[in-house]
């Protein structure tokens, strides 16, 4: 189907085997529509990262299958998928410009084209003053912008983000959220965002998926109904409070389940 960017059918993931097996995820069914912005929230340990890595092809599912633009995803990351990770993934030995250009250099793209795309990405992400700087000289937020720019420059049709703003303070997060929305509108890509921050999910996404505690499955997919022109200003909207409350009411029990399990583990189970 041309309108579908990616589809997950019955995807599950089990780590280990026998008595030590950990049922981390699933089964999960999800359709990602072209151009939509979907956010996934869930308690810690519910398998959100596993879900993202399965879509990306970084992990193979134990059960079910994943397709991207109709073709099965197996073993390798398909072209057209970009990933932004939670940890700082900038290359410390390259400056900002070379970092962003990294993926392009491998393709058979002309130097002029590379320069154009990288320069554009740099100005789009507000990194112009730092093009020759090294990641070690930048703050965490800037480094994440470099990683986003590096992804952006490859013109992905599906962008997966795994808690990209997790290490940042609240205000920076809100601003970065606006940046992400700008990026989404500009590229028309499908965006799949994992976050533990409910307000972030509700503020940014067309749909919010609420996951259960491990093994993670979707409890509910909530439509937010925001217009495409939304921004961090909609935290003032009445609907924002209502939606956030709704998400939390579904999530709370699961979060407590996850917490209970965590304290079991710490007690030495």
């Amino acid at each position, binding site marked *: 189907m041309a309108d579908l960017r990616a589809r997950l059918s019955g995807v599950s993931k089990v*780590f280990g085997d026998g008595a030590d097996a950990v049922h981390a995820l699933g089964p999960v069914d999800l359709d990602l529509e072209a151009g939509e912005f979907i956010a996934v929230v869930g308690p810690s340990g519910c398998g959100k990262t596993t879900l993202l890595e399965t879509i990306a092809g970084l992990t193979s599912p134990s059960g079910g299958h994943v397709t991207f633009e109709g073709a099965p995803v197996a073993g390798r990351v398909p072209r057209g998928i970009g990933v932004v990770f939670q940890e700082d993934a900038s290359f410390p030995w390259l400056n900002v410009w070379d970092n962003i250009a990294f993926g392009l250099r491998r393709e058979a793209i002309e130097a002029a084209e590379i320069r154009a795309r990288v320069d554009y990405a740099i100005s789009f992400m507000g990194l112009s003053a730092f093009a020759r700087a090294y990641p070690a000289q930048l703050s965490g937020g800037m480094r994440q912008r470099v990683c986003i720019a590096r992804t952006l420059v490859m013109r992905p049709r599906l962008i997966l983000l795994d808690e990209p703003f997790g290490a940042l303070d609240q205000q920076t997060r809100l601003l970065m959220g606006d940046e992400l929305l700008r990026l989404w509108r500009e590229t028309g890509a499908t965006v799949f965002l994992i976050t533990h921050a409910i307000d972030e999910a509700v503020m940014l996404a067309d749909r919010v998926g609420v996951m259960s505690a491990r093994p993670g499955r979707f409890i509910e997919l909530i439509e937010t109904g925001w217009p495409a022109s939304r921004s961090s200003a909609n935290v003032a909207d009445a609907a924002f409070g209502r939606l956030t409350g709704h998400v939390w009411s579904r999530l709370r029990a699961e979060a407590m389940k996850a917490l209970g399990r965590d304290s079991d583990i710490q007690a030495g189970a």
Partner: protein
Amino acid sequence: MSGPAARAPAEGRRLTDVALLALGLVAAWQALYATVGDVAITPPLATLINAGGLLGSPIFWRHAEATADAFAVSLVIAAVGGVAAGVGLGFHRFSGLVAEPILTALYTLPKVTLYPVVLMLFGLGIEAKIAFGVMHGIIPVILITLNAVRNIDPVHLKTARALNLTAFETATRVLAPAVTPEIFTGLRIGFSLTLLGVIIGEMFASQRGLGFLLMNGINTHDVRTMMAVILLIVVFAVAAGTLLLAADRRLHRGARELR
């Protein structure tokens, strides 16, 4: 992926791997012998027998004792002196900063080339050998101790003060346990290097000791004795090294659990 149940076969596999490696080395040794012949080396079994023979020979033991005496004294001096100097330099920040690069530079010197000076200062007896051993072993002990003391987490000192401990109590019950694992690592390295220093010293300028036996072996083309001595030295070094390493690991693990 791994739990207690999975560990037993993995250990077993590791032991078989070790056994295979040992067999491989012995086979390579035998093959080398087949290539270069009696003039160069002795094969594994023969070397083992010769080594056994040496262990039964009083002449060998006289030499071994000479090495052991020098080694023991060097070790004590390097250990005590090294730790003392390291502690001092670690606590007195300025001296430590001044001394560290100098010591590091001395560490990269081929100290062997300074042996003639030592001989001139100490004569040709056991004192020179002890000096050789200390020269080699004391520097890593100082450097590692210095770093261990310098990097004591300030939290420990604050905790001691909060608990109103005396200086002595702080030193013995808080600081000493904090630095002991690292100092032990330094001593472990110092052990090996002191042994090396004493043996090389004997190779260069002595009529007694295991190092002398090695050089004598090559001068008189007595390959059998030479190889047997090498085998014994290596076995001793590996055995002592392994024991020290196990103790080192135990100490570090203990420290980690405390934290």
